[in-house]
């Protein structure tokens, strides 16, 4: 059953098109992350779903109801903001119950909901305190609590962890995932942090310039990016891109670049390649095998190590092969030094090819 659906949604501010005819369907209980760089429209889309922004065209459905013209309070949503947006002069308890009191709910119902939310989020000892006396993590939990008491099916999160320091972010991220597992509500989450997206999402919608580039599970996005942008956005260090052309040799497709020849017999083409087509070959640093094991790979070559970055668990090597830069991630067991000549190998089945306009080949 579809929980949230968007049909041909567009939003323009005057002549500037911020969201371009978007379509999206979120299943019940699903955790969808809107991921993208600054200005891609992800927060704007979330605000449209919430009803805080008026759309220029299109429709929004929540739990089967057409809510395009509804006020946020009537859409069955709860929302958590980046800056927590807690009412500063009220205690935590009042913050949680204010909306319910305004709606005229009976006192015992309000108490029931507040207690339940406090128990789930472990903020019971904080109920009498004011937001100023809380830490960042506690404030965010209260903000989530404010959405919880609304007894709704859909939760919207607008970069809720961006204001927290790194350690707190990791802790709260795990808590959010546990919360989703416990509650099972539909959650739509906006972030620019790919780690949050990869770890939290059932599906990720990567956005750029007001368009959804790809909507898929994290694994699919990682392994089969639709286009150059998605491929380069996910993964750290980023995917290696090598410019070259495709030629057909004896019925086999081959990637050619100055000094480099990569047979593509293992590569799964999504579209039909053209002879002489200018393409970019994408290889993730972690998919390149280094050392003795590389000999077993279908494609092997020798590279010059220019820089070694030991990172504890892994080591990142900045290498050069025939004038092309190549980043490689390997485990820290192997000891590589600057200037070493390295044997590497990889399987093109894990690689990606992109045409000149960025589309996957």
């Amino acid at each position, binding site marked *: 059953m579809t929980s949230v659906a968007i049909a041909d949604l567009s939003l323009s501010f005057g002549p500037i098109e911020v969201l371009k005819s978007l379509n999206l369907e979120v299943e019940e209980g699903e955790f969808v992350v809107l991921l993208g760089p600054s200005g891609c429209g992800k927060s704007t889309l979330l*605000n449209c779903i*919430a009803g*805080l922004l008026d759309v220029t065209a299109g429709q929004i459905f929540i739990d089967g109801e057409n809510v395009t013209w509804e*006020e*946020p*309070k*009537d859409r069955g*949503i*709860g*929302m958590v*903001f*980046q*800056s*927590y*947006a*807690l*009412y*500063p*002069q*009220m205690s935590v308890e009042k913050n949680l119950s*204010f*909306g319910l009191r*305004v*709606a005229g709910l009976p006192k015992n119902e309000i108490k029931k909901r507040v207690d339940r939310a406090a128990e789930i989020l472990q903020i019971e000892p904080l109920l009498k305190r004011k937001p100023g006396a809380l830490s960042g993590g506690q404030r965010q939990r209260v903000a989530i609590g*404010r*959405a919880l008491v*609304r007894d709704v099916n859909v939760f919207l999160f607008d970069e809720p962890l961006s204001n927290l320091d790194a350690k707190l972010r990791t802790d709260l991220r795990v808590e959010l995932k546990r919360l989703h597992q416990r509650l099972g509500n539909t959650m739509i989450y906006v972030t620019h942090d790919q780690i949050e997206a990869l770890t939290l999402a059932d599906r990720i919608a990567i956005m750029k310039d007001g368009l959804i580039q790809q909507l898929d599970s994290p694994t699919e996005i990682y392994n089969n990016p639709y286009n150059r942008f998605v491929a380069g956005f996910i993964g750290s260090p980023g995917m290696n891109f090598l410019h070259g052309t495709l030629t057909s040799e004896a019925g086999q497709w081959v990637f050619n670049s100055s000094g480099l020849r990569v047979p593509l017999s293992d590569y799964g083409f999504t579209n039909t390649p053209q002879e002489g087509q200018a393409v970019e070959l994408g290889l993730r640093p972690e998919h390149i095998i280094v050392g003795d094991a590389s000999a077993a790979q279908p494609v092997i070559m020798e590279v010059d190590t220019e820089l070694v970055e030991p990172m504890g668990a892994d080591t990142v090597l900045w290498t050069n092969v025939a004038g092309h830069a190549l980043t490689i991630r390997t485990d820290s067991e192997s000891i590589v030094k600057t200037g070493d000549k390295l044997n590497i190998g990889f399987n093109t089945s894990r690689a990606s090819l992109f045409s000149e306009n960025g589309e996957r080949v």
Partner: protein
Amino acid sequence: MSNSQANLQAESTVATSRKRRHPLLRNMSAKIAAIPMILVTLVGFVGCSVWSIVYSFTSSKSLPREKFVGFDQYDRLFDSSRWQQSVENVAIYGVCSLVFSLGVGFLLAVAMDQKIRFENTFRTIFLYPFALSFIVTGLVWQWLLNGDFGLAQVIRDIGFSSFEFNILSDRDYSIYAVVIAGLWQGTGFVMALMLAGLRGIDQDIWKAARVDGIPAWRTYLFIVIPMMKPVFITTLVIIAAGIVKVFDLVVALTDGGPGVSSELPAKYVYDWMFGRGNLGQALAASTVMLSTVLIILIPWAYLEYSQKKDATHG
């Protein structure tokens, strides 16, 4: 002497010559640059105020005289009906100013905050009187409130031919003419301050309230206004400090009249100091004015400084 010994001697000589200069000599340029401020503060503000307070205990007439008479001047002051009238007037003016300018100013600010069209035009209109001299304001309203030719005539022309409105010649209500003129001049300023305060409210709070289903008026009343407490207090202090100073306006509008019915403390001081030649009285009056302001100011300043850190580097 060996080489190393000579080196040590040389080093210690250099070390002594680089001894810290006397603390008073550090930052010399800064201190020289600050001399005007120090002079002004000490001689100007503190010195003059102290002089005035001291001489308020003398029987100075047209010129300062060193004959000390204790609290005589103050006795005379509080007995003076003219002074009593000016105190009463400044209280009326003060309360009316505060209530109306804060009230109307806030309402105007809320209206301006609603994402209206022509916001700049409206703001320009509400604020332009603040750019005018109090003399200009006083004279314009003197004309408008003229019983024969002013607004009263307009009302008569509409049809209420027996309408009388002679506030400027009315001993009981002349002070309210000053109130009207003062409010016209100053409310726009209060509105500008309130609007700045409103705009400083985090937009996410508005969003959260909207998602929670809280109507706009309740958001203003229970969330925004409590958040704006510091702005209200600051505005209040500024208005209050300005009320005691009102001088130009009353000189232009009514000159204290009719009689002394719209007299204000600042004018009382000026008249005795430069007009009627009773320095002692004038200084006693100004000392009373000073004390009143300090009573408001000191608690507020204490509050401000204990909360905020200094806005300087290092």
